[in-house]
């Protein structure tokens, strides 16, 4: 564990904030915006541990969520999965939430000499939208590739297209390219670009593979189960190519994709929607 931890750490706080508003996007996605007196100085790629202040003893653990926006109205984009996200999706304005953040290592600063390509899968779009906004603020315009199962699984695609060029792919062909979003990538890779990706492990593994083959810098934002989110439980190991572990909450979630052993990072049954599971 010789890894250095990011330095925005000095601003980590546990705040209890009321929900300001909740907007649903289709059936499975919601944007939750909170009301904070002090501005949250989160950077794109960082995350926050979120828990309803009134949840009692169960669900017990806070849920890691990427910041969609920061400042005095920090927001997150959630996908309904299990009990935690279902409760979040039921919350009404005014309901208090505990937010611990900003946490983790943000996206590495873009290299001005390269055009950023953002590769998003489903809800993984959240930290990439935050990044695209930051790039736009600097006058940079990213190229975004955005994939999902169907047109319904591309929440906030309009935001991305407002911020730069957007290409979409859906597995059922209901929008854009029919197939995987990674199929759009090869022809775009070259010495003038760099890649940022967040989405399902399998998608990110493929992005990493393509980038490695063409020597394109690629940063991936990892999802692992987390108990604490701030480096004390050691519950969030990410196997690295040199046989060690990085800890996603402090060494990530944004990590240089070449450091990760992608063959060992898809164990997680967690990654299946629990809602489907609980139907039975």
């Amino acid at each position, binding site marked *: 564990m010789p890894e250095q931890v990011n330095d925005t750490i000095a601003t980590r706080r546990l705040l209890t904030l009321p929900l300001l508003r909740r907007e649903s996007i289709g059936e499975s996605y919601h944007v939750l915006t909170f009301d904070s007196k002090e501005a949250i100085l989160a950077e794109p790629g960082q995350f926050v541990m979120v828990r309803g202040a009134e949840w009692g003893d169960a669900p*017990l653990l*806070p849920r890691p969520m990427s910041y969609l926006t920061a400042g005095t109205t920090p927001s997150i984009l959630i996908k309904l999965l299990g009990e935690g996200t279902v409760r979040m999706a039921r919350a009404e304005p005014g309901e208090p939430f505990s937010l611990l953040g900003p946490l983790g290592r943000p996206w590495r600063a873009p290299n001005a000499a390269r055009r950023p390509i953002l590769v998003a899968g489903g809800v993984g779009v959240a930290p990439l939208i935050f990044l695209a906004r930051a790039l736009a603020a600097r006058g940079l315009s990213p190229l975004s590739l955005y994939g999902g199962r169907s047109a319904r699984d591309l929440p906030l695609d309009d935001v991305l297209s407002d911020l730069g060029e957007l290409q979409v792919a859906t597995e059922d062909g209901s929008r854009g390219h029919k197939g995987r979003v990674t199929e759009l990538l090869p022809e775009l890779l070259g010495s003038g670009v760099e890649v940022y990706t967040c989405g399902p492990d399998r998608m990110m593994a493929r992005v990493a593979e393509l980038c490695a083959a063409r020597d394109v810098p690629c940063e991936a934002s990892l999802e692992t*189960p987390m108990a604490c989110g701030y480096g*004390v439980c*050691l519950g969030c190991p990410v196997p690295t190519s040199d046989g060690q572990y990085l800890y996603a909450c402090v060494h990530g979630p944004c990590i240089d994709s070449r450091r990760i052993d992608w063959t060992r990072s898809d164990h997680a*049954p*967690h990654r299946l929607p629990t809602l489907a599971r609980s139907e039975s």
Partner: protein
Amino acid sequence: MRAQTVRIGELMLKNPVLTASGCFGYGLEYDDFFDVSELGGICTKGLSLHPRLGNPPERICETPAGMLNAIGLANVGVEAFCREKLPMLRERGVTVVANIFASSVEDFVTIAERLEKEQGVAAIELNVSCPNVTHGGIEFGRDPRMAAQVTRAVRAATHLPVWVKMSPEAGDIVAVAKACEEAGAHALTAINTIRGMALDIETRKLRLANRTGGFSGPALRPVALRIVWDVAHAVAIPVIGIGGIGSARDAIEFMLAGASAVQVGTANFADPCAAQKVALGIAAYCERHGLNASDLIGAAR
């Protein structure tokens, strides 16, 4: 304010609240949150003779009002702890309890001897009850004779106070407790986690790579409280209560049942300031009832 100090043998703690091993890192991750030296103490992540990588993912999973963990005692090793972590803890004035783990009596002794050389270790806590490693761990803690053997050997190797952490999976916990007392333990801490399991019915896979994991959190509290009561009523040395403590109310329950101090574990995850809040809450309760913290110990009727 009412006196909050409590004695654990020769050791005087500022207040009865420590943090539990494995749930507070090395105590150095809290600068943003609060001054850790305000606590009664911290128990470090379990230290082994050599650094350990720990288990592959997944290591944790949530259960009703609780969680399972199979970290596999990932830690920097006692040497790196002494060189890199302990000086910073010392500087901050933190009361440090070094939680140690080994798979042989000899290694327990070697680790203790290494710690003995350092300033700033207030006590050693023997983890003879870790459910997540193949060798050592829980076997020592289930058997009164083996637990006593480890205790005696470490006692002989160090001047530091020796605490022994009880496994709830011993068939006869009171017998283990008495054996450790007889072997010279200065205090007993109870409890470590109970092994649990979780499965995903769609993939039909176990949720943890290690198959089983240690069960902790509020769900565990009633079982932990019963064990603390039983142990505290059977031995004369101090008992430190652990298991699902997240509020002053929980902590006071353990003290009334006989604990001289408590440790806050899983509750730190949702709230890094949990232990600090527990300590403040106990003080407020004491104020309200006109009691010192030490008056609470075993005061259930």
